[in-house]
């Protein structure tokens, strides 16, 4: 298991739906960073020191295949981008030692949650699987 998250660590949010990115300019949409109803966190993977191939392999094995959906891409953030929004990044080593959650979304304020998601998406970098691999 990795130590607590360093603010400079890269994080990947795996994308399984086309609706979560803009193919026109290869950018991430805010909905990719919105937690579902009743939850205050989104699932990410810590990718520091991993090869590109390893990063995709985690997404395919522990995210896409587990859900029976195709892996389309990943939105990459630096942990401090989330921390700057008042969120925290907490290690959560299930189902994989590199799994973590970006936590602290305001569960009772979806307008503010959306605003935070806009900020995260603005700072994220999109990597599409077919281009990257």
């Amino acid at each position, binding site marked *: 298991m990795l130590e607590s998250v360093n603010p400079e660590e890269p994080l990947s949010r795996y994308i399984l739906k086309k609706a979560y990115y803009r193919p026109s300019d290869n950018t991430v949409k*805010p*909905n990719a960073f919105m937690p579902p*109803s009743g939850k205050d966190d989104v699932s990410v993977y810590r990718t520091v020191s991993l090869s590109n191939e390893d990063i995709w392999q985690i997404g395919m094995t522990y995210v896409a295949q587990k*859900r029976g959906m195709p892996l389309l891409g990943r939105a990459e953030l630096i942990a401090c981008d989330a921390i700057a929004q008042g969120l925290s990044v907490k290690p959560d080593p299930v189902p994989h030692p590199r799994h973590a959650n970006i936590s602290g979304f305001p569960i009772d304020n979806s*307008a503010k949650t*959306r*605003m935070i998601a*806009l900020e995260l998406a*603005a700072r994220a970098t999109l990597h599409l699987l077919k281009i990257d691999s």
Partner: protein
Amino acid sequence: MNLYNYIKSTSLHDVTSTTFEEYHAATVCLQDLNPRQRGFFLDPTNGLRLEINILQAEHGSSIRQELSAINDLLSNYRYGAPKGLGKIAFSQTTADAIPIIFRYDSSNIPDPLLEHRRFAGLISAVDELSMENSLPNWDGYEAKPILRSVRDEAVRLIKMLPSDIPLPEVSPEPLGTIAFEWYKAKDNLFIASVSGKGIVEYAGLYGIGNKDYGTARIENTFPKIVSYHIRRLFED
């Protein structure tokens, strides 16, 4: 020669610079008079839209009598005679027909037919995303399904969109909501989202560090605070 086509192709040049500010009043009057033919055209020289109503004489009456009846009606109209309507433009193309031409700025007056065409693609996109994401967990991360009530509210909001506001992209959200996105760049965008509860939630980013978010109730018109923010996004 087909009278309607003839007028359509020639009368645009007959229009003066008079603007009929009380277009609605005039239209109501003309509807009362049951015009036989009417059409909407775009004036290519200035981008203004023209409405052309062609009145044809009833049996037993002359065009002059009908024109007189229009003017009488307009003078007694409860909002007062529309400005400039004394200068009804007409060209005597045949013995029994008069084209009456109204000119107005299309940005202020929605026309149901054109609005329908404008919104058709967007409504179709809403329908498509509603169907595609109608089951729970559609994103693999426990997203709520897009319900029919959310779809209906999205369509309702689309039909309220002011004509000077560009059409947005639509996306499903994990909350079971539908987002309308107006996008310039990833740090310069505005999102308005509906949940089927009569509320729009919005969030906008206008460059790093410049943001706003909130909620607005959906009444009978497009929420003013939302249109304010969208226009703000597209300001130079």
